[in-house]
């Protein structure tokens, strides 16, 4: 626990954490100080003047809250008339050349300027001269669209590119009312975290080309999730909406702050991985290209089990711990060797020293923790001996090309349990649809051995089953989540204290 200090806000005593600036310290107890340029990840810049607060006794009478550390006994004034006038005047300045095109602006509904105007300003423009016009709809690269007229020149995007990605593509050029954020001629944004500037932008100056005009933000429901794009397991907000007479669709992933895992940001690839949740999904079970019901698919699989001379089970390293333990028990029940072979998921040299990892599997640490063998030799050996392969959503096509897959599956029966209707699973004799990671609850262990849980965010119209439920239907002994947790605790020593309800939202560092 950090050291606590006492200070006064508008005459009321509050207890806040020491060592933070006023915005963060007072913000943590629910008192908002308006600010545009300050962002905890980027530090205080002090250029927007929106966070000016009064100090009674000691120090200057007026200080920017972002640059003032909270101190014992400080008397902060937020609701005095002169502070209100400052906030009001600063906003009036910001809005002089702002186009106020909220109806067509994607930021409307989550825009700081809009919110602050409603809270602190609320008066009509007094300007009688025509507004300064600037460029609109500029392509900044990496799927970022910039509108210079809406910009409040807080410089968050500029600082992000300098401090976080250290690529420095953006800058503010010119002065006074001709100042604008710009790229260098012919050198657009070029980094793998670029779309974070869209989230950082407090107004609608930076918009995402991918999300542009897809939804108004107030229609979307927001759910916490964990990205399965690589083994980092970044925390995300899943913005989804079920439009009238349609399916529940995801419209965007946004980063969710988690100091332990990803901080404030996510990579662009992970951000766009929401598309895989919407598109190209397997929705119905298929037996040699004919659509069948789930019940019939299960019966057909059980028949296959009986007929097969030797079964081998392949598991995806993206599965949650619960699914892994269910499938492991199913394998034990069937007496089949279980493999987590997934060398194809590792893209050597793709990772960086920030968030992106070489290993694109979300839960490889889980495979290791459950002692599931992942070697290529063991998998190929077992498959050579077996007549039936049950593939639980493992994308073998990442490792083998089409011809070697055909060779591998020669004279074998293949049952695919998958969420995606890919070429690999079209080669299978029987496929069973399952939920994807936004549609089930579970827990995974990331590359830093941090255990994170996530809840079901999306409920599709024809909600497919969780993979562990499918494993239970196929004869797996673990029927309920309670069974799965008990078994998990037995196998994995470090999960002994593991109880899904007691894991903090920020994740649990396993030792």
């Amino acid at each position, binding site marked *: 626990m950090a050291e606590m200090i006492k200070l006064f806000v508008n005459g009321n005593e509050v207890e806040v954490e020491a060592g933070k600036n006023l915005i963060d310290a007072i913000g943590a107890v629910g008192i908002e100080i308006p600010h545009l340029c300050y962002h905890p990840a980027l530090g205080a810049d002090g250029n927007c003047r929106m966070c000016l607060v009064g100090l009674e006794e000691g120090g200057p009478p007026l200080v920017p809250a972002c640059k003032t550390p909270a101190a014992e006994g400080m008397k902060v004034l937020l609701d005095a008339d002169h502070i209100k006038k400052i906030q009001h005047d600063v906003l009036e300045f910001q809005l002089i050349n702002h186009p106020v095109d*909220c*109806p067509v602006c994607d930021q409307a509904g989550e825009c700081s300027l809009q919110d602050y105007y409603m809270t602190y300003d609320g008066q009509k423009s007094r300007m009688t001269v025509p507004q300064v016009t600037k460029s*609109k709809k500029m392509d900044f690269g990496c799927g970022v669209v910039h509108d210079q007229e809406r910009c409040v020149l807080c410089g968050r995007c500029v600082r992000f590119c300098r401090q976080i990605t250290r690529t420095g593509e953006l800058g503010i050029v010119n002065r006074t009312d001709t100042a604008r954020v710009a790229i260098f001629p012919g050198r657009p944004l070029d980094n793998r975290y670029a779309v974070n500037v869209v989230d950082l932008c407090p107004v609608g100056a930076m918009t995402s080309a991918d999300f542009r005009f897809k939804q108004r933000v107030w229609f979307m429901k927001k759910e916490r999730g964990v990205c399965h794009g690589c083994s980092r397991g970044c925390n995300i907000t899943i913005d989804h909406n079920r439009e009238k007479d349609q399916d529940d669709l995801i419209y965007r992933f946004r980063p969710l702050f988690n100091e332990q895992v990803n901080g404030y940001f996510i990579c662009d690839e992970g951000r766009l991985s929401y598309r895989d949740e919407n598109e190209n999904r397997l929705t119905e079970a298929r037996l040699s290209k004919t659509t069948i019901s789930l019940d019939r698919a299960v019966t057909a699989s059980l028949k296959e089990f009986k007929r097969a001379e030797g079964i081998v089970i392949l598991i995806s390293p993206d599965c949650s711990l619960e699914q892994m333990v269910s499938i492991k028990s199913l394998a034990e029940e069937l007496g089949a060797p279980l493999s987590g072979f997934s060398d194809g998921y590792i893209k050597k040299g793709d990772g960086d020293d920030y968030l992106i990892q070489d290993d694109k599997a979300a839960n490889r640490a889980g495979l290791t923790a459950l002692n599931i063998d992942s070697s290529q030799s063991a998998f190929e050996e077992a498959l050579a001996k077996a007549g039936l392969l049950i593939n639980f959503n493992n994308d073998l096509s990442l490792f083998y090309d089409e011809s070697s897959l055909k060779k591998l599956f020669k004279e074998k029966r293949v049952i695919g349990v998958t969420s995606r209707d890919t070429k690999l699973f079209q080669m299978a004799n029987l496929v069973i649809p399952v939920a994807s990671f936004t549609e089930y609850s579970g827990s995974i262990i990331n590359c830093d051995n941090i255990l994170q849980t996530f809840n079901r965010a999306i409920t599709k119209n024809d909600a497919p089953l969780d993979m562990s439920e499918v494993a239970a239907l196929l004869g797996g002994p673990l029927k309920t989540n309670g069974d799965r947790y008990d078994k998990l605790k037995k196998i994995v020593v470090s999960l002994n204290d593991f109880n899904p309800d007691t894991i903090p939202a920020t994740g649990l560092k396993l030792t």
Partner: protein
Amino acid sequence: MSAKVKTLERKGSSLAEKIYFVEIFKGMATTFGHFWRNLLDNSNLYVRHYPEVEPEIPVRWRGRHRLTSHEDGTVKCVACFMCQTNCPAECISIEAGERLDDKAEKMPVKFNIDLLECIYCGYCVEACPLDAIRMDTGIYSVTDNNRESFVLGLEELLQTPGAFSEEEYKKGGA
């Protein structure tokens, strides 16, 4: 409570009334009286001869919707979704797209109003910041024999003309 209560004597308690026989003829006499009178001369009827004679629709009447357009014929709507947000019946569904003329950045590529769900409250008209949707077509009767044709699309909404002049509409309180 001090409302004036007037107690009326309940009719139908005498024996002749209870038998009904005489009363039926009395009633029929009234009915046939009206019948013959109106058959010979119907100019004094109190009811409208609908559908031969249509009602006069006032400017402020909330009829079927339409989308207005600029003078050059392009749609005024910028797909801000205010009407859809405000619609209590959730009968409007819009899909927005990039607009390439310089009128705005955004325009609707799809604009559907399901008239079977619409409750004609007029909130969409009030919510619109650009006067792009109006209910001034004067169309009060919407009939068909299949559900699909009650979903109005963008084209249909744009092509329906208003029933009143601009001055009349503005005077009507818009």
